[in-house]
């Protein structure tokens, strides 16, 4: 099991008066591709932040890849996320002051105590696999097209071969052609690496790409806006 949630509660205030998320039970199996949808402000991003360990749950059990995130301190969760979780956002997936290569390389810096041998070659191979030429990789990020930037973002999130990839509405700002290209590249790599995918989107036309689709309202008993 990649994600295992039992009686998870999350409230913004410490007294727990305003519970945003209250999930009695929810699982994602290893290698599964799950599409999560729901209205804005419903707590989707908060759930992703809990699963990635950026936020800590107020109550309940949250197990990701066999590790109890609810028992870890902040430093341990940061380390866990750096090693095991990839993250792709809708926008601002890359540091604008670094080039493509440096963006991917920085992701590796946080994932291990020391960079693995041959990491340079590994990064170059992955970027080349994603149809990014060497000259493109050396360009400042702002000089790349949106489609190229999203491909670099995929490389950045998958270079460390994470067990879980979280994608927070990564296709919402893309046109149909770029969206299809993005999904194709992402799913190819996900399948190749046997990575579990938790994908948040309003776009239900993407449903065929996933093993299952779930509405947050269906799993959350907490108060929503």
């Amino acid at each position: 099991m990649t994600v295992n949630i039992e009686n998870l509660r999350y409230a913004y205030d410490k007294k727990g008066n305003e519970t945003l998320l209250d999930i009695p039970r929810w699982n994602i199996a290893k290698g599964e591709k799950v599409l999560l949808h729901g209205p804005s402000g419903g707590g989707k991003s908060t759930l992703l932040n809990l699963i990635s360990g950026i936020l800590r749950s107020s109550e309940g059990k949250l197990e990701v890849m066999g590790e109890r995130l609810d028992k870890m301190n902040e430093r341990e969760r940061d380390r866990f996320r750096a090693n095991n979780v990839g993250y792709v956002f809708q926008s601002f997936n890359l540091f604008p002051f670094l080039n493509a290569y440096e963006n991917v390389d920085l992701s590796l810096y946080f994932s291990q105590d020391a960079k693995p041998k041959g990491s340079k070659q590994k990064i170059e191979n992955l970027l080349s696999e994603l149809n990014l030429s060497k000259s493109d990789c050396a360009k400042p990020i702002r000089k790349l097209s949106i489609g190229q930037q999203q491909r670099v973002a995929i490389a950045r999130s998958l270079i460390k071969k994470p067990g879980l990839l979280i994608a927070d509405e990564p296709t919402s700002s893309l046109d149909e052609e770029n969206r299809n290209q993005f999904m194709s590249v992402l799913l190819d790599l996900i399948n190749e690496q046997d990575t579990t995918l938790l994908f948040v989107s309003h776009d239900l036309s993407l449903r065929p790409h996933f093993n299952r689709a779930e509405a947050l309202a269906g799993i959350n008993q907490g108060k929503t806006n």
Partner: protein
Amino acid sequence: MVFLGLAFKSLISRRGSVVLTCLAMTVSIFVILGVEHIRTQAKESFYNTVSGADLIVGARTGSANLLLYSVFRIGSATNNVSWESYSDITADDRVKWAIPISLGDSHKGYRVMGTTLSYFEHYSYGKKRNLKFANGEPFHDLFDVVLGSQVAKNLGYGIGDQITLAHGIGKTSFSMHDDKPFRISGILAPTGTPVDQTLHVSLQGIEAIHLDWQPGSRKSGPEVNSLVKEDLAIKSITAFILGLKSRMTTFEVQREINEFSQEPLLAILPGVALAELWEMINILEGVLQLISYLILFSALLGLAAMLLASMREREQEIKLFRAIGASPGFLFVLIQLEALIICGFSILIGSACLLLCLGATKEKLSANFGLYVEANIFSTNSVLLLSFVVIATVAVASIPSLGAYKQARSVT
């Protein structure tokens, strides 16, 4: 290295605001280092002006005034000291040596001082360093003159050249002693004191050029060739410096001179008078220091404001850092490092600019203000001051750094 590279690249991406902040910091470091350096050098140069002298004696006036005209050649004496009084006092067994000083004439704005050969033997400055000749020898003839190093350098004079003295101390004088020209017999080595700005002649030389003078005008007088040094009787001098055989007798001799019955005299201890005079300048010194610290403070606030303003635009960047596994502490250190890089560059540029400016204006400072400033600005004081700037930068940058830390912890 990753930290440093990231901080550098992040700063370069915001180069507009970073360059302006760096400029403000550079100006503040230039001012704070400059004020500190000139203050220290001026103080050192001030205290080094005269050494080894036990008492300075002149007509009764304020101790600051006596010190100013006798040592710094600034201002004028209220009255003269008669030669008889000088002879009586210096005849005392407790007196080891005496240097008479006669002021009142000038040459192209530089003060002329009448004295005796004991000046070259006993006058010392700095850590009891005696005067040395760069060229030539002391005045032996009546119309010989010995130049201070700056006078010779700035006016382009050499040994054997003839110069004319002017009556009075104004930079432009219409009353010239042009009938009695002086021949340059020697040029002193640089001392970094007012000696460098002085022309030295014998007391008899001063008497000789005033033989034909009545107050305000010149009357016909003897020819130059007919004057004999030994025949010229000294009537009065402006002040004199005393060296005593024993330091133990200093206060005793000082009291006796201050109670001298033949005419009202004042004897001062050079060290005490220098300290008193510096105390008066101290207020200006304090004001300058305060202004430079205020400039630094405003530049540091500017740095903090620039970093704080960037926090809003960096909200997404912080979110991304957190997503890839960076801890809030990492972000705290990153912002601190950015501030330190700006501070480091400002220190480098500010110090380089100050070095260049001092190198370029060193001569003018000494010629126009008598301020002898070394171009080397690096001293324990300046290192301490720069350390303070670095610590202040860390303290001020902790405002945006803590902001980034808190933002990183509350990412949603």
